């Protein structure tokens, strides 16, 4: 069994499986009401220097109200799992990011992220460790499994691997080269869902992205939900529960919590609102002005929604076919 190659980048987060087991053991297993505001959830569970991850991504089922609260509280020196769009862009534009395990940060149809360019090209983001999308999700999966790595066939032969913290071995069964992806245990995970009960049992409609993996890879897990439902509703469809309550530390009720992104079956992405950020993010000054106007000048998510406006929210709801039951 041979070690063939090692990525030159360091691990931004240690693979402390035994410590992870201990912290999982210490989590309360009883049914405890975990509802709180974005402000309390972020203040209580996110600290400067933490390693955090978000799911799904900026324009789709994304914990935007929690992300805006992180910016509002200005929690800095963050290390990020770098797969995202608007949400990571806001954190970058606010200068809160120190290091990235990066796979994709951009604006999708609107092209590259100027916030990312400014922060990385200036050196304010001190380090970018490269991965593929699936590689990052597999790293969460390894942590979720409680194992130190997963073997895959992505990244082989590329500079993506060379500038990562992965290793290439000769498989002890087949003799073929294989990429080993180190487990990524998050300090804090943030996920937005369709519904949750007050204990944290959470369900998602449509595609589930990497919610199951990220939830299980997080030492502390903050859930925001479009709707808080009675536990009976969860128990009536237990196979729909992607995140069981005992994984969860905070449950935040956040209607339109993914705005300006979409929430399938509930509301459409708000294209003009997304374009507003795309425009503002081109220059650091206009980006700062956006953060001032849409985050710092507004005390909380309720105030943000007031600014979006009831009429606009109804339009966005009307744009998506609801789910027939």
């Amino acid at each position, binding site marked *: 069994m041979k070690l063939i190659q090692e990525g030159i980048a360091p691990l931004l987060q240690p693979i402390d499986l035994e410590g992870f087991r201990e912290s999982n053991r210490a989590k309360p297993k009883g049914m405890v009401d975990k509802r709180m505001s974005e402000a309390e959830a972020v203040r209580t569970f996110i600290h400067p220097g933490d390693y955090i991850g978000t799911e799904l991504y900026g324009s*789709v089922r994304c914990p935007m109200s929690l992300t805006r609260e992180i910016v509002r509280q200005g929690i800095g020196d963050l290390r990020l799992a770098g797969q995202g769009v608007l949400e990571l862009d806001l954190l970058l534009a606010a200068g809160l990011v120190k290091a990235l395990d*990066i796979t*994709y940060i*951009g604006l999708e149809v609107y092209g590259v992220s100027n916030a990312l360019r400014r922060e990385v090209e200036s050196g304010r983001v001190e380090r970018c460790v490269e991965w593929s999308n699936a590689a990052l999700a597999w790293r969460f999966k390894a942590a979720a499994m409680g194992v130190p790595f997963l073997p895959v066939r992505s990244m082989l032969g*590329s500079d993506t691997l060379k500038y990562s913290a992965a290793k290439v071995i000769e498989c002890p069964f087949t003799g073929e080269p294989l990429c080993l992806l180190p487990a990524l245990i998050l300090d804090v995970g943030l996920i937005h869902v369709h519904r949750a009960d007050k204990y944290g049992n959470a369900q998602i409609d449509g*595609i589930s992205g990497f919610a199951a993996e990220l939830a299980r890879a997080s030492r502390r897990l903050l859930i925001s939900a479009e709707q808080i439902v009675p536990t009976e509703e969860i128990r009536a469809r237990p196979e729909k529960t992607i995140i069981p309550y005992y994984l969860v530390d905070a449950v935040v009720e956040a209607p339109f919590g993914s705005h300006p992104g979409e929430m*399938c079956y509930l509301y459409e992405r708000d294209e003009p609102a997304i374009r507003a950020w795309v425009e503002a993010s081109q220059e650091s000054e206009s980006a700062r002005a956006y953060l001032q106007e849409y985050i710092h000048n507004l005390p909380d998510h309720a105030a943000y929604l007031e600014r979006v406006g009831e009429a606009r929210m109804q339009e966005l709801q009307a744009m998506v076919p609801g789910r027939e039951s």
Partner: protein
Amino acid sequence: MSEPEYNPSELLICSAARLMPDSTTAFIGTGIPMLAASLAQKMHAPNLVAIFEFGGTGAILDALPLAVGERRSFHRAVAASGILDIVETAQRGFVEYGFLGGAQIDPYGNLNSTTIGDHDQPKVRLPGSGGGNDVGSHCWRTIAIMRHDKRRFVEKADFITTPGYLTGPGSREEAGLPRGSGPYRVVSNLAILGYEPESKRMQLLATQPGVTVEQVLENTGFELLLADEIASNPAPSAEELRLLREEVDRDRLYI
């Protein structure tokens, strides 16, 4: 009758759509691949199985997705799972075609979407691999869609984000990538390109309408092989353009 007018995006979309046969699987990314897959479904490939990275399998693309994770990517899909189920399905050999893009492509189809200049002090920080490296590692045949100029078609990419044929014959297999997988076509605004079977180097197969072989060579930053016969890719047909404009992209988000 005279040839209908069309713009460069429409040409790329129609060219890409024609490469996908019916009843096959295609890993679909944001932008032109989505439009190409939708057009292919309406033209000649009603059973084209569109697979979207974040979980959508077999969606009916009658409304155009703006993002790989959004609701239209699993509209009336046969399955809605997650990214690992999708990429593991590709890793297991179930996905025939994959679409790729990038800021640079080299003669072996290696793609760069990470950095221009030095990785640690980049001149330009690009978005990164995203699903690109996964698609380029696992799909049987990848199709790159590129704007064609010397800055993009380069002898050596600043960074190999997504593996093509790496350094040539056998090098994918040596690296541990799946046997028989790799780059298949490049669709550009100037040409349709493939790879010469022996050397695995990029090869000109066809020119786009009104483009000469010389123009293609002038705009390519490396020595481009020529197929024995260089075809000319037909212009978008009236029917292709009608479907594209009236059904695929009614709101003209891309075209």
